[in-house]
């Protein structure tokens, strides 16, 4: 028994699955309650290459949901990407982890290299910008979001997992991003405070997100198409296909132009720098 992950029990994923997973690369944008769960699961399934991105250090209010974090991390003010790195390497020492304590907009060259982006961010604006980036470089994006709403003195938990696949309907097509929601978010800027978050809905959504990822890179069956949007009702603990899917266009009209692909400031001089 060495340091190599033994994946015999997941051989049903296909003869090539171990090598495909080892050669695949995923970015995790946001290493909070959702992203930390996803990092841990991807380490267990044998993903070989990670790009965790988050500018933040852990705080005591994160400890109720950040998987792998300890009280000692809170005392030390450990970076969230360092916690993710530790969790991943503890499971799979062979994994390559290129951790970036930064905003994703500061590491776009590395982000262009990944096969899939997991969007685990809080704001609609950030989701929207990240999706535009992913579409420009033809990268599938798996977005998770959860919320706790107050109504009549009681609380309600809900969330969703979405696969934003280039060429297919986007977040705007599905109504997850609207101009009204972006404007309302901008108006609240700086006054929102900490939103309620708990560990178990994040775990449910993270598990579904990893399931989406596995269907992309190592599908165990190919006859059932994964719905692009699943909705989570945390009050009754159910996940179901969104009704919005029935009204979607076949193709996205928001990201369908050739000039929205690739580097907008392309110059062949850049090739010389890379060489």
């Amino acid at each position: 028994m060495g340091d190599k992950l033994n994946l015999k029990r997941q051989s049903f994923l296909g003869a090539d699955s171990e090598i495909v997973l080892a050669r695949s690369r995923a970015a995790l944008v946001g290493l909070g309650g959702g992203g930390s769960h996803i990092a841990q699961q991807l380490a267990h399934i044998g993903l070989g290459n990670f790009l965790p991105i988050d500018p933040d250090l852990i705080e005591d209010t994160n400890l109720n949901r950040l998987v792998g974090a300890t009280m000692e991390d809170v005392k030390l003010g450990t970076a969230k990407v360092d916690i993710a790195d530790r969790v991943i390497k503890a499971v799979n020492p062979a994994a390559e982890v290129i951790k970036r304590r930064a905003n994703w907009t500061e590491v776009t060259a590395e982000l262009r290299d990944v096969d899939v982006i997991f969007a685990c961010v809080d704001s609609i604006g950030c989701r929207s910008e990240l999706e535009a980036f992913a579409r420009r470089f033809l990268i599938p994006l798996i977005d998770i979001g959860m919320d706790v709403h107050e109504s009549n003195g009681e609380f309600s938990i809900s969330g969703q997992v979405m696969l934003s696949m280039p060429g297919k309907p986007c977040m705007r097509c599905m109504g997850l991003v609207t101009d009204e929601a972006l404007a309302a978010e901008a108006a609240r800027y700086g006054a929102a405070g900490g939103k309620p978050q708990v560990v178990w809905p994040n775990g449910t959504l993270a598990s579904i997100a990893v399931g989406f990822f596995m269907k992309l890179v190592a599908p165990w069956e190919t006859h059932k198409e994964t719905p692009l949007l699943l909705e989570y009702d945390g009050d009754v603990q159910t996940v179901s296909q969104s009704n919005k899917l029935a009204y979607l266009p076949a193709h996205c009209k928001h990201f369908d132009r050739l000039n929205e692909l690739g580097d907008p400031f392309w110059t062949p001089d850049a090739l010389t720098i890379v060489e």
Partner: protein
Amino acid sequence: MRTILKLTATLYDDLVQRLHEPHHFAGERVAFLKCRPALSATSLLLLGGGVHHVEDEDYVDDPSAGSTVGRSGLRKALQAAYTEAVSMVHVHLHEHRGKPRFSKTDLRENALFVPDFWNVQPSLPHGAVVFSFNSAVGQCWIPGQSSPSGVDVAIVGNPMRCTWKVMNG
């Protein structure tokens, strides 16, 4: 530096469907993928966003090759590269499974016509790719480099298909 051609499964499926359509004398169809380039930390990316199909009348009846595109067909492809400011990747299909190979004729012709696209888009890379049913190989001519580099291909869909990740593809 690796060169990767990426295209959506939607675009790939449309492309392959058209390449399968019989022509009244050409043995195979060809097309040009219209791409925009980008650099990542490790790779040159050619991002496919559309297809320039060779029209029926632009094939030349040439029994010595699977298909030969006449001057008018090449002129139209050059025109598309110029007006849309795109990298052009010549594509055709070998109807088998497993890793395809360019024929000697392919390699000779690629070296002749692909660099011609620099006459209209000198700052962009251009290339040629041959697909099989489940794999692909390609060549890319990069500005400033005299010989072509290899091309890996990623079909972005559900599932993802990336030529450099499978053992026997």
